[in-house]
């Protein structure tokens, strides 16, 4: 079946009028599978197995950012990736600081203001420290994330006013 051509009248195409992802019988089995403890246990195992390589990847991004801190495009790309899977890698604090830097860089771009290299460098250093910290330092990472968040909020406000 192909989608019908554009028309001035909006069409509402009911679910039974277009091909579904799977048959009703398979759908019923799929729902049971998705909600079974066995499936969730397997999935949890997959998440745990993914954590170690993800952590290594994040440490690689961190080293790259530290070496190329002036390259804002590189920092943005890496920090975006770190934000995406730091928590899955068991590095929640690192992810939170990356999230703050991401938002700062996105918001400054959106209002067409130049990035403050010192702010970026400060975040990169904090991300590096959090990423390399042992689990016991997670609380400190959260404190740093909160302080950086407040700093960025102030800077964004100033940039918007200016």
């Amino acid at each position, binding site marked *: 079946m*192909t*989608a*019908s051509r*554009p*028309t*001035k*009248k*909006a*069409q*509402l*195409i*009911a*679910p*039974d*009028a*277009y*091909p*579904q*992802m*799977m048959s009703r*019988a*398979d*759908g*019923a*089995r*799929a*729902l*049971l*599978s*998705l*909600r079974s403890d066995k*499936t*969730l246990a*397997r*999935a*949890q*195992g*997959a*998440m745990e*197995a*993914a954590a170690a*390589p*993800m952590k290594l*990847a994040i440490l690689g991004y961190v080293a790259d950012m530290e070496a190329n801190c002036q390259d804002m495009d590189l920092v943005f790309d890496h920090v*975006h*990736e770190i*934000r*995406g*899977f*730091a*928590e*899955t890698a068991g590095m929640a604090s690192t*992810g939170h600081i990356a*999230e703050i830097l*991401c938002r700062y860089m996105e918001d400054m771009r959106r209002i067409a203001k130049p990035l403050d290299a010192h702010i970026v460098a400060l975040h990169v250093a904090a991300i590096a420290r959090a990423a390399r910290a042992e689990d016991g330092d997670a609380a400190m990472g959260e404190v740093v994330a909160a302080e950086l968040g407040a700093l960025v909020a102030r800077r964004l406000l100033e940039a918007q006013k200016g």
Partner: protein
Amino acid sequence: MSVTGFESLRALIVEDNAHMRSLLRALLNSAGVKEISEAGHGGTALQAMRERKADLVLCDLAMKPMDGLEFTRQVRNSDTSPNPFVPIIMITGHTEKHRVEAARDAGVTEILAKPITATHLFARIAEIVERPRAFVRSDNYFGPDRRRHVDENYAGPWRRQDDTDDTEVREVR
């Protein structure tokens, strides 16, 4: 005989990060999905869909050169789209309102926020299976019905504010 219901499902993962691709593949595998293909951005994903049918797409938002929004628009609206109705789960770390609205208006079926969890991914897939959405075709949109809940007792005008004045609904079955 199908055991998990997913044996014959063909999934496509569109994600520029190899680690995320690997994780998504493992999660789909754990639910019983066996036929999984991968693409690194929207452009290669479109090509992959033309070569091999996809029943379900998991797609990252931020990719280069073609991001997830443009990919979704192409899937929904291109004359050469292999399956304009395919369910697309958009995976994104960008959960700001304007980003979510942009994804919705591009025609995504579900949005999954990063960091992803198995529970959340499976819930999105279950939603597609359990409550498939009607599709809407109008002059400026083709995709899943953006109204999640239909109020049977709603007495006001049915049109969205940004719909054109001459838009009317007719149901196709």
